């Protein structure tokens, strides 16, 4: 559920200027205490020493980050050697989220484009159809996916029955299952921003290109795509960022071998095997990655705005 910062618009209406601080106070208090302060607290925890039965000892330590990047052997005093275990999990998460994003783009772009070029009165109903699944509980959608993709599940039954395959495909508990699950979870996030930018696109530009001897595909690539790029980038971020930290799809569809960041974090806070500072450190690394992506995006947006 990542999104850019909500823009307040440029309107400078000031009817309630005198009350503005009072009106904002509840949101400052609630979000400040229950979201911002916890994130700061988490940062502190990532630099503390682990307590074996969950929780922390208030003693400064870098061991959580050390554990993430390095292997110091059994007794912790050997020369540091890069430990690829956790980095590999991050790498797999990036790869899975990237694959899901590309899949969403391949399906989402034509869909968004098709909807945006329907007669105006029909567009709302198409958008409505695309958004309904987003409103359905993510857990239920993921469970449905799990049910559908099983070895003896309806999808395999169907494919065998129509004679496309002889033996059921093994999809569940593979990387592909996770990618499909992520794709399914966040597909509407790809369609909606692209739809919004194609809808704003002035098709007279395409006609002008066609008039100047450009073929349809050249027009699409050279004229339309540059114009709707902001929507495409927004869609990619809206799919990639939540996929990166996803928990349900990898956990329910991927099985033990296809661990992603979300499961790794969750494991640190469950039961006695947990390591809170380590979990906090992994969360900090994930948060830093996500905020970096959003920051770069915001900066490019601002530059694009300045240019236009």
């Amino acid at each position, binding site marked *: 559920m990542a999104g850019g910062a909500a823009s307040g618009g440029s309107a400078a209406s000031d009817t*309630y200027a005198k009350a503005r601080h009072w009106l*904002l106070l509840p949101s400052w208090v609630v979000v400040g205490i229950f979201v911002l302060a916890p994130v700061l607290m988490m940062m502190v925890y990532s630099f503390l020493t682990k307590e074996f039965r969950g929780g922390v000892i208030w003693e400064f330590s870098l061991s959580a980050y050390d554990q993430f990047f390095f292997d110091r052997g059994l007794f912790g005093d050997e020369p540091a050697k890069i430990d690829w275990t956790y980095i590999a999990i991050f790498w797999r998460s990036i790869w899975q989220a990237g694959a899901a994003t590309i899949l969403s783009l391949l399906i989402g772009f034509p869909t968004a484009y098709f909807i945006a070029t329907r007669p105006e009165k029909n567009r709302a109903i198409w958008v409505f159809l695309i958004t309904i699944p987003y409103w359905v509980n993510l*857990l239920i959608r993921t469970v449905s996916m799990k049910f559908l993709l099983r070895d*003896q599940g309806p999808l395999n039954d169907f494919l065998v029955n129509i004679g496309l395959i002889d033996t059921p495909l093994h999809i569940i508990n593979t990387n592909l299952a996770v990618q499909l699950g992520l794709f399914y979870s966040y597909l509407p996030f790809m369609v909606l921003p692209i739809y919004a930018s194609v809808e704003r696109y002035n098709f007279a530009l395409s006609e002008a290109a066609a008039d100047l001897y450009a073929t349809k595909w050249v027009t699409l690539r050279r004229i339309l795509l540059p114009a709707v790029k902001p929507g495409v980038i927004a869609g990619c971020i809206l799919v990639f960022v939540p996929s990166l930290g996803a928990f349900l799809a990898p956990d329910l569809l991927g099985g033990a071998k296809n661990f992603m960041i979300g499961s790794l974090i969750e494991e640190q806070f469950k039961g006695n095997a947990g390591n809170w500072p380590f979990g906090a450190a992994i969360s900090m690394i994930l948060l830093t990655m996500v905020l970096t992506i959003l920051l770069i995006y915001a900066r490019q947006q601002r530059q694009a705005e300045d240019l236009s």
Partner: protein
Amino acid sequence: MSAKTDVKTFFGFKGITLLCLVILYAPLIVVTLYSFNASKSITVWEGLSFHWYLDVFVGPESAKFKQAALNSFVIAIVAATLSTAIATAAATAIVRGGKFRLRTASLGLISLPLMVPEIVTAVATLIFFNSIGFTRGFLTILVAHTAFCIPFAYLPIQARMQGIEDTYEQAAMDLYATKTQAFRRVLLPLMMPGIVSGFLLAFIVSLDDFIITNFVKGAGVETLPTAIFGSVKQGLKPNIMAISTMLLAVSIMMVTISYFVSKSDNTK
């Protein structure tokens, strides 16, 4: 216009769109169908039956699911109400408060829950409640949901409010209404569609949430998603499909209401 001369139409896009809809709906339809399966096994179809719906309400796990459903709905209603009220006040300050130094910072703060990955918010909230010695349970879920839902309630309200020209309040004040009267009599009714959308969105987000709830719920307190997850972890059973189908119906009902509210206009 023929396909040859129409610069807008691309071959295959319609097919992909239909494929997209199939992908989005097929899993939901399949689960709905199988929730009416008479068989004890989820693999074999043995004919139509309401057996699993009955099981949800009177079966061995019914008490657990009823309590979880009650928790889920109470939390969703309270969290959505609180976050909508907070968001309405915040949107009024941001959209009608003029330019001020804390405006951008406030917007950033309000949208923080959208920018921080959900699992990170979950971890942070758990750590926070733990470090202040707050016992995890119903109340921690409620508080976490209220904070998390604020941006979801906020966005439709802000969008609606930006569409309302400030001359309406000015006209009201010109006609001897105080600022409070202008807000209550003119601005609030005009904002209503946005407020209802914001509330419904916050409600769904709260009802939907698994990750944060899972971290802050503590032992013994379950919401529907955590109860379903726990059950699915032990294997897919048909009663889960029945529950899923009912939740699905609730979601679709909500989104339909939201659709008509956003289309409806109290100005006609």
